[in-house]
Every structure is written in C-alpha cells, then in structure tokens.
C-alpha cells in the first residue's frame, strides 16, 4: 500500500451530523498533548467505540461529519486512537481542513457511507477516488483528493510540511 492507498477494517458506522462535542467533549479541551486526546474519543456518547479501534481501522459516517466547534482535538483524538481514515457522506468544513492539516485522510463518498457495515474490509484509493469493499469486490465512487491536500497528507500534515520550509532559519519563541 502506498501512502494514498489504504486498507483497513470498518470499526464503527455512525449517522449524520456527528458533532465535535460528541467526538471530543468540551471538558477535555484543556488537554493540548495531541496523543492524549485519544483517551477521550467519543467519551460521552459512544464510549464503546474507542476500545474497538485497531490500528489502521476506518470510521464510517453519514453527512456533515465533524460539524460544530473548530476544536482540532476532535481530529487529533480520531487520528491518535489509531484510525487510518474517516469515510463519510460529507464533512463539515473546519473538520475537513483540520484532517488535512493533521494528516488524517477524510474520504468523501456518499455511496460507501450508505453501503459499508461494521467489520467490512475496505481498500481506499485516495487519488483515484474509489472505496472498495474487499469481501464483495464492490467499488464505490469517492471524491479524489485535491492535489494540495495530497501534498500535505504525504508530508504528514501542515506542521511537517512547513517545518521543511523553515528548517535552518533558526526559529525561536
């Protein structure tokens, strides 16, 4: 698998309009260590999901995933819980941008979001814009990754991307 082709298992399927308070409750916003945010993923509404996630698993959701607050911890908690990609019918815009910037693939595919079920083994082609259910061979269309997003994703997110530019300039606080 290349960095733009991912294979994983669907750990959970969620509905429409999953908001960032549900993904990452406001009471934990003063945690600024990104890796620690994973401990509170879905803590109030769906606490059982966290323990089901194995490294590289996918989350599947309906439309407008990540609506609400701009809190980046919602994206970080998903990424550092080990999720390899989120496949949704659609994303709220700030969550989508945060995903690009933190290097979490966010795949827009209404067809896949409607069809996939928990436990499905799936292959995602981010550049080609397809989601394949490996157990049946069905292929669902997805929005191909924008070249700008692909560049950031390949770098591992915005921080490593910009770090390369500024390395050697002697940054300080």
């Amino acid at each position, binding site marked *: 698998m290349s960095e733009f082709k991912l294979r994983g298992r669907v750990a959970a399927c969620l509905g429409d309009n999953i908001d960032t308070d549900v993904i990452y409750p406001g009471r934990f*916003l*003063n945690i600024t260590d990104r890796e620690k945010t994973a401990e509170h993923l879905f803590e109030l509404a769906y606490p059982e999901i966290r323990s089901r996630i194995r490294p590289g698993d996918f989350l599947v959701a309906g439309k407008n995933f990540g609506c609400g607050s*701009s809190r980046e911890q919602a994206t970080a908690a998903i990424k550092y819980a080990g999720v390899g990609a989120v496949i949704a019918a659609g994303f709220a815009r700030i969550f989508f941008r945060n995903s690009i910037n933190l290097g979490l693939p966010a795949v827009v595919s209404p067809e896949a979001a409607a069809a996939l079920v928990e436990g499905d083994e799936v292959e995602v082609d981010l550049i080609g814009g397809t989601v394949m259910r490996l157990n049946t061979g069905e292929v669902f269309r997805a929005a191909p990754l*924008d070249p700008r997003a692909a560049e950031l994703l390949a770098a591992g997110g915005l921080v490593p991307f*910009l770090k390369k530019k500024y390395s050697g300039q002697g940054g300080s606080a």
Partner: protein
Amino acid sequence: MGMTLAEKILARASGRERVAPDEIVVASIDLAMSHENADLVRKSFLEIGAPRVWDPERIVIILDHRVPAESERTAATHKAIREFVHAQGIRHFYDVGRGGICHQVLAENGHVLPGMVVVGTDSHTTTHGAFGAFATGIGATEMAGVWAEGRLWFKVPATLRILVGGEFAPWVSAKDLILHVIGRLGADGADYRAVEFDGPAVRGMTVASRMVLANLSMEMGAKVAFTPVDDTLLEYLEARTGRTIPDSPDFAPDPDAAYERVIEIDVGREIPEPQVACPHAVDNVKPLSEVRGRPVHQAVVGSCTNGRLEDLEVAAAIVRGRRVHPRTRLLVIPASQQILLEAIRLGYIQALIEAGAMINPPGCGPCVGVHQGILAAGESCISSTNRNFIGRMGSKDSLVYLASPAVVAASAIAGEIAHPEDIVGKEVA
C-alpha cells in the same frame, strides 16, 4: 456577471481581478484571532520553526473559554499564552478582566472592518460577517501556518442569499429568525457556502442582532455569513474606532452577482411565534407552542450569540419585580466587561440579581461545558447560547433547549418553557 461579497473580498485579498465558486485562492489575512487554544497554536507554531509571527499587529488573543482559570492545567495554559504574546510583541491581548468573549471583544474594540479577511480558531468567527468581513473559523494547526505565513488557501464558496422582509411579531427576535432558517435548511444546509442576509427586516436590526444571524449561520455549516454594510453599521464602527469609514462598493455584492439560491422570508407570516431548538441538534427547531410547559432546571442568558446589552435588557425587563421559580436557577453571563459595566449603569444587573439570578463573569460561561453551570443527569436547561449537542453543557443525560433571551428569562420565572407573554402579559413587547 458581477460578484457576491464573498467573491469580491477573496478577489481583493488574493490579488485577482475576479474569482468564481470552487476556485482555490490564496488570500492574505487581515486579522487572526485566537482564545485559549492559542496555546495549541503556539505549540504548532514553535514546531514549524518560523522565527517570528508574520505580523504581531494583526494577531488578537482573548482569553474567554475558561476565565478565570478553573484548574491548574488551564492556569498553565493561560501563563504560557501570556509569555508567548510578550515574547512576540503581540499587543492586542485581552487578559482576564480586560475583555470578555472573543467575538464581542473584537467587535466592540473596532478590530474588524468591512472588506477584511478574518480567521479565528473558533467556529463562531462567522459572527464578523456582521461587519462586512469574510470571517471564518479554522483549526489550531492551520492558525499556526497563518501566524508563520500571513496567508491561507480558501475554496471560493457559492453564496446563498436570504432576503428577509415583513414585520417581526411581538417577542420574535433575530434569534428566532436564524433558528427558523437553520431548522428549514438543516445542520448542513449551508455547508461550505457563504450566506448573504439582506432585506428590510435585516437592515432594520441593531448591529448586535445582526451578529446573532452571522454567528448562528455556523450551525448550518456556513463558511461566512454577511449582513449589509449600511449607515447603522458605519456609525457603530465610527463610535468604536474614532474614525470615519467611507462606504464603498467593495463592501456590497454586485446587483448582478450569481447566487446558488435566493430564499425569501416574510418574518411576520412565517415566524409568528418564538422558536426553540430542541435536544440534541440546533436544526431540531420547533415553534415555542409545541414545547411550552416542559420543566426547566437551569436558564442561561449569555454567550457570543446572545450575551449583549440588548439581551440583558430584555431579560431584565421580564424578570424585574419577579422571582426566578424555586426549582430553577437563572445564570446571566454578560459577553464582555464593557457590557457588564453598562448593564450595571442601566440597572439591568440589579433587576436580575433582585429576581434571583446569578451573574457570572464575562466569558463563555457554561456554554462549552467546562465550568460555571454544568448540568446533572436528568436536568433540563433553556439557554440563549448556540449549541445543544449531547453533553454540551454537562451530563450526557441532560437536555439543552436553545431560545431567545426573552424566552429564557420568561422560562426562568415560570420554571418551565414559557412565552414572554405568559409572564408580562400581551401589552408589552
């Protein structure tokens, strides 16, 4: 073909003659705002390794989500931010007791002017469309990039135009109008889009009420939401900046701009009574009469949506000479220090306290669910805030109803969801 206001501003900021929806542009940033999450931004910024922020004069940092610090962890966050702004020479820093809620502080200090591109690490940054700015929320890491580079990429949004005419029915406010619109279009009804509000009913609004429309447009996914730049706004800005801001065609859409959709609303006919967003979604909007009588344990007047002077004024008028119901508590959180001071001077705070309200310090209060009014399992709250998601204000088994400050105040007196008419009768509106 002309341009919408979002297109005009992005064209100017990206150095182009014109832009069209779905194009990607790189725009220079006029103002970058952060609150407590400036600490997250700071960490990413230091990791990036840029020597200095691009322009300390264009960065504004306001502490509001957890003021004063409610925990040792937050105290450390506040301290790190103070040290950073000092080291970087960021002058526009509003510390505890010096400001209030970030969006109100930007507004009342004249930081935002028409035509600007404003980004904030807060989703309700759309509020500043009430000042004719292209203003939108971004995440902390993205803001670190802005602090380093002073520019950001945007996809040019298509625009929805919402024209509002007619006369507001008694006790129906800007909050009821925007809840109605969100209920009609849905939580994703304006995803990735710009919204332009206009029409006589919008032009007749105070700046504070226009901010309610722009603020809550975020709850239907809007990237930005504008209300008109007119004399009402320019007078507001002159009072806060001490200078005249000449009107310009750059601050209005072209008459022949292309819209994805135009929606017309007759506010008197379509919204005859106050609206309530019911648990657990902002688009789960019902007319007040459908939820009247549901018990309320906590009532909250405050937030970046409805914590301004006119909101405190209407709440004070309703509770004056009455008592908050014994099974209910009323929390009032002025949106800023300036608003608190003015509300004291005008006697609103005295009326609220005499009725049994608790006044919390200016800031986000319990809206984000971290302090100053957390709900227990089984409790219901009616609130003038902006979100009612599961666990937003405390227990996952609590309920939050969103309504106007008038309905919140009336419900606090009644101990259940109530129409202001139930409390003050039909003669005053």
